[in-house]
């Protein structure tokens, strides 16, 4: 690893994309993720890449669709309302089996909502965003270093499974600064050399490739979707990731992702200091949801507490994942309000954490 730098989360996402060989970025500004576009507008021309500010979010995601079809690593980024606009394009990209990376730095909603941090788009992102029977990979970093690492992993997984991958962050992670290190490797822009399906000119040397999400016969579409779901089953089996801290002997396991996981971890650390047996569980992959990992983490727990910057969305997946084998309670703040570690600790105590 090279010398550390001090970076904003948004900048780390952008630099990591370049380092993953992302040759083309198509975006449209929106707070709190505009630094991604601003950073890439400066960096892309220096490394032989393309930065393009599209006329809208809809245009940007469709540029990604076209670029991904040519087999080149590409990315777009936005924040909540902008992601809603991109939803049609994301469905088409998934329907055409194309890899790409989408960054969502969540802010308060619904509607125009606000520019402060939020996690209220968990349902939207983890359930595919757009219409149709499909999944997208969703990674949820919780430090600036992990913002960078998740982008690299998102590109690799997207290519491996030929599907969109989302890095789901929030305004707090996007705006905060922390030390981050990138490896020293030279930046190499991606090409289509390992993508025999790419529509990038056959030169009369092979049959032409078609990028399409329209199927004329229902059985043909059904079979295509069934094939895709076999890939999803493989992903659910092999690509989950989570971090568990002090869960083995915990009476109450606190489940949170992203920046909220750090607030929850602070509360759990304080609880332990006060002799309360609390544990912290953090899903890093939201799709695939770390089902086995969470079951192992709550095995000895009496209760589970889910903390989110929303009115409670991941809490449903937690209940499903553990098949309601333990009582699951929820604490959250929403609308751009950040839950304080002291509030989370109070909830742990209210649940009988100091019995």
């Amino acid at each position, binding site marked *: 690893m090279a010398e550390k730098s*001090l970076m904003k989360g948004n900048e780390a996402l952008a630099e990591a994309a370049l380092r993953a060989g992302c040759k083309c970025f198509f975006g449209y500004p929106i707070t709190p993720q505009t630094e991604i576009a601003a950073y890439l507008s400066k960096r892309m021309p220096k490394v032989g890449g393309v930065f393009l500010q599209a006329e809208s979010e809809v245009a940007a995601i469709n540029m990604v669709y076209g670029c991904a079809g040519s087999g080149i690593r590409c990315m777009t980024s936005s924040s909540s309302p902008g992601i809603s606009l991109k939803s049609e394009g994301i469905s088409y990209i998934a329907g055409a089996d194309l890899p790409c990376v989408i960054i969502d730095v969540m802010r308060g909603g619904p509607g125009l909502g606000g*520019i402060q941090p939020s996690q209220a788009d968990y349902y939207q992102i983890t359930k595919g965003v757009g219409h149709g029977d499909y999944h997208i990979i969703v990674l949820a970093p919780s430090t600036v270093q992990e913002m960078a690492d998740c982008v690299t992993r998102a590109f690799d997984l997207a290519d491996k499974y030929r599907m969109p991958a989302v890095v789901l962050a929030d305004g707090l992670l996007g705006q905060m600064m922390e030390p981050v290190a990138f490896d020293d490797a030279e930046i190499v822009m991606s090409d289509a050399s390992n993508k025999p399906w790419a529509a990038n000119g056959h030169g009369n040397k092979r049959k032409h490739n078609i990028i399409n999400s329209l199927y004329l016969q229902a059985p043909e579409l059904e079979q295509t979707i069934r094939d895709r779901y076999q890939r999803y089953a493989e992903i659910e089996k092999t690509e989950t990731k989570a971090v568990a801290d002090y869960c083995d002997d915990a009476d109450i396991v606190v489940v949170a992702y992203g920046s909220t996981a750090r607030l929850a971890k602070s509360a759990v650390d304080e609880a332990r200091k006060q002799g309360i047996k609390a544990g912290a569980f953090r899903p890093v992959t939201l799709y695939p949801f770390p089902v086995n990992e969470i079951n192992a983490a709550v095995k000895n727990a009496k209760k589970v507490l889910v903390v989110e910057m929303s009115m409670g969305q991941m809490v449903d997946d937690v209940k499903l994942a553990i098949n309601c084998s333990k009582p699951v309670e929820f604490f959250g703040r929403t609308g751009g309000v950040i839950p304080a570690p002291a509030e989370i600790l109070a909830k742990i105590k209210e649940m009988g954490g100091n019995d």
Partner: protein
Amino acid sequence: MELSKLTVVTGHYGSGKTNFSVNAALGIAAKGGKCTVIDLDIVNPYFRTADFGDMFRSKGIELFAPVYANTNLDIPSLNIPLESILADGGYVVIDVGGDDEGAKALGRYAPLISGFADKQMLYVINKFRYLTKEPADAAQVMLEIEQSSGLRHTGLVNNSSLGAETTADTVRSSLGFAEEVSKLTGLPIAATCAVEGAMPAEAPSPCTVKRYVHNLWE
């Protein structure tokens, strides 16, 4: 460090201008000086000088910020009576947004600031910021800020840090960088900032600061 009546704090993006400005204001207030802080940042949506409103009030420091700072409105509306603030005779610290973009807001007040005698304009640098880790890049941004604002700098503040991970070695490894930027820009090093315990003995113009900008879980 000795501050002029008017201190304009600029810097490349994320150099730590806000933390420096907060320290400067609290330093003035601690000596019993009347101090006004102006948050002129039209770039950052959050983590800004206006976050310290309550602390400033408790120390008798007056704060002026963009009308919609820290609200859900992303509109850089400025309603700051700089002329009367300067005429008031107290100390004034202006925290400008990062890079040339942030300095655009400063340009509006350039005629007023140019005409004010007892002033300094400090360019804050941090070696550990990715896009300005080369002295030439840091010097280039300084020139862009001057072009954008129509004002000239008088000194450098070496505020090199890795946030919570900063040690004396971190700061020590930035001294050569600061010297190089000083050579390229012709600006003297007005201050080397470090938190207590992280100040190398050989640092020029040492200025011990506290870290006020930090995360909720720290």
